[in-house]
């Protein structure tokens, strides 16, 4: 704690020095450009916020604002919007009288802010209520538990998704968990079966294909993974799939292609980090600037003592692939897997342990991987 505070003080001092006074001369001088609003006029958004301040328990209005802000948080990688979404549903402090959709929104935002235990607790409170079946809440809980590396809890929630009436999502949910345990062939055929469903919406198709691509990536079947990623991007090119595909391309040392995928995206921390890594790998001309910008963002984020909860994965990857600092990467990755245990988190942990060259570090990672029950062929050569 004391060390963290000293580090914090140093970071603060360094950043305080960055502040430069502004002395505007004319009234029409632009001092700040606000983030763009999408589709909707700025004035209308303001009126909505004012209306919400007057009627904080208008669930339709509150959820409309919260969804819009959450979508912007995802799109731009700007956490302030997640905070604004939380504020929009602040009319219900007490979970007991919050509508189901508000609870679900709160859980999703807690998840976005990496408060996984809190998200699960909110969902469990919601699911304990009598009433209509809630496939979305079960599916969200299944995902939270999967991210935490609690596969059997995730399985139980997946089963409830099917029971609540969403058979396709429930089956896909279970197939994903089975794939994480290494049941590649069986999961592959289940996902293929679901993909053969007639009139599948584009977004659902893309989701199934991305799940399949990630399976092939862990099974070290690069050609199959590449095909599935491309098909997913054709079906519905969402932000998540682009990032996952970029990670795959970097892994395959196809950095130029990774840069092409990333350059069209808003420069969120996740995108910028990968631009820096792929740029360094490809020795691209813009790499130095991207690296410098990412380094500065990390320094700024670290002013908060809890920064590593939100940025542990990215910071570990940066330490490992940009700075080549295996020990620091290992420490960051260790902190990160205490929070989230997706395959990429365990992979980065293993890569850091491998680079550190220490058997004790590799043993430590192996114990975590075994406890989770993940089978990822990429880990074999590292541990």
């Amino acid at each position, binding site marked *: 704690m004391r060390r963290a505070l000293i580090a*914090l*003080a140093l970071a*603060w001092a360094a950043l*305080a020095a*960055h*502040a430069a*006074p*502004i*002395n505007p*001369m004319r*009234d*029409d*001088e*632009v*001092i*700040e*450009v*606000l*983030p*763009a*609003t*999408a*589709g909707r006029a*700025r004035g209308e958004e303001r009126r909505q916020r004012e209306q919400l*301040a007057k009627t904080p328990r208008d669930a339709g209005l509150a959820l409309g604002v919260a969804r819009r802000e*959450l*979508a912007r948080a*995802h*799109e*731009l*990688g*700007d956490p*302030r919007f997640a*905070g604004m979404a*939380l*504020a929009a549903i602040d009319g219900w402090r007490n979970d007991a009288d919050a509508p189901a959709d508000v609870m679900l929104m709160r859980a*999703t935002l807690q*998840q976005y*802010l*990496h408060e996984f235990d809190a998200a699960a607790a909110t969902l469990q409170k919601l699911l304990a209520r009598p009433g209509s079946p809630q496939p*979305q809440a079960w*599916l*969200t809980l299944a*995902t*939270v538990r999967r*991210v935490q590396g609690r596969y059997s809890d995730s399985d139980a929630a997946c089963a409830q998704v099917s029971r609540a009436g969403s058979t396709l999502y429930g089956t896909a949910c279970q197939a994903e968990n089975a794939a994480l345990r290494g049941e590649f062939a069986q999961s592959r055929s289940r996902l293929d079966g679901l993909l053969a469903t007639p009139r599948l919406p584009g*977004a659902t198709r893309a*989701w199934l294909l991305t799940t399949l691509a990630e399976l092939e990536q862990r099974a070290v079947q690069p050609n199959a993974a590449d095909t599935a990623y491309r098909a997913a991007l054709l079906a519905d090119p*969402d*932000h*998540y799939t682009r*990032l996952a595909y970029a990670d795959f391309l970097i892994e395959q040392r196809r950095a130029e292609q990774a840069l092409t995928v990333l350059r069209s995206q*808003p420069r*969120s*921390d996740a995108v910028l980090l990968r631009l820096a890594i792929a740029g360094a790998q490809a020795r691209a001309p813009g790499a130095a600037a991207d690296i410098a910008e990412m380094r*500065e*963002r990390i320094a700024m984020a670290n*002013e908060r*003592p809890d920064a590593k909860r939100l940025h542990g994965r990215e910071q570990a990857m940066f330490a490992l692939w940009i700075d080549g600092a295996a020990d620091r990467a290992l420490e960051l990755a260790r902190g990160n897997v205490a929070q*989230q245990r997706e395959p990429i988190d365990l992979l980065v942990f293993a890569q850091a342990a491998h680079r550190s060259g220490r058997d004790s570090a590799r043993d430590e990672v192996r114990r975590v991987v075994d406890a989770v029950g993940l089978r990822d062929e990429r880990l074999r050569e590292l541990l």
Partner: protein
Amino acid sequence: MRALCRRFLLLVAALLVSTSAAAHKASDAYLQLDMHERGLALRWDIALRDLDAAITLDADDDGRLTWGEVRTAWPRIEAYAVPRLQIDGCPLRIAGHGLERRSDGAYAVLQLASDCIVESALPAIHYSLLREVDPTHRGIARIERVGQASIVRLLEPTERAASPAAGRLEFLRDGVHHILTGYDHVLFLLCLLLPAVMRRVPGGGWQPVERLSQAVLPVVGIVSAFTLAHSITLGLAAAKLVSLPAALIEPAIAVTIVLAALDNIWPVFPVRRVVVTFFFGLIHGFGFAGVLGELNLPTSQFAWALLEFNLGLELGQLAIVVLATVALFALRARPSYRAVVVRGGSLAAMVVGVLWLAERTSNVSLLPI
């Protein structure tokens, strides 16, 4: 993590496409607190973007904050921020302000000070900035005391304490602070008081009153009319029964100053001053309500908070009135009183009022306040 959100969107929410890059860190404010033998100095940096989300600095909704917009919003920025930071035993006063650029955007800089002496190693800080806009906002405070290592504290915004039972009477203080720093209201009151120590004699001339009690009666009448009137509109606006745009009220307040000053030199009011004062007081009440809106009174104790704020206004106003009346009474018999104080003072007030009117109806800056 991302997987979850993607799935969430998949089932229930529509995707929105947005363009433009923006900041990528959470909302932070920076506080530098220096404690010394004679008190404390505090520098508080708040992102303009965050302030815009709370109190709308971008008046024309074009997504660009100009210096003109920020400059005219300064009183609102102070009225919003300052009550949201309390250091136990240390009433804070505003000592200056500025702007600065950090790598993630432009920040408002508030300089605050207090004469208090903090005995404990760490002062108790109550922080509620942006709680209603972004509960993930944090204040990063560095506290320095001579001869000691600096301490960094993370301030998490909590619900603003507003209960009168807590004994802090912060809305009362907000009210006093607002009237004392609301120069337009003070100037209007002074214009009304200038001739109060004189009385009109038949034929249009003025004569100094003989006794203080003769001045007190008209002063009480005028102040009561002003108070009653602005309390009515403040209450109506605060209860959201009536609402008028600031673009209308702010210039109207400037007009009341010009007219009140003009009447001192050259009678223009067709009715008694008390009646005019009441009418103008209604307008000023809407001006107070604008500030009240930004104070974001807690709905649970709305009536209490409103009463406290209004009481604070009246206390501050009473202090101004008493001081001004005593001073004017002392000066009234001087031969130059009418020429210099009444005429000169009124003329100066008219000039300021006209300049304010120009400022508030256009986008130019003419006065430092």
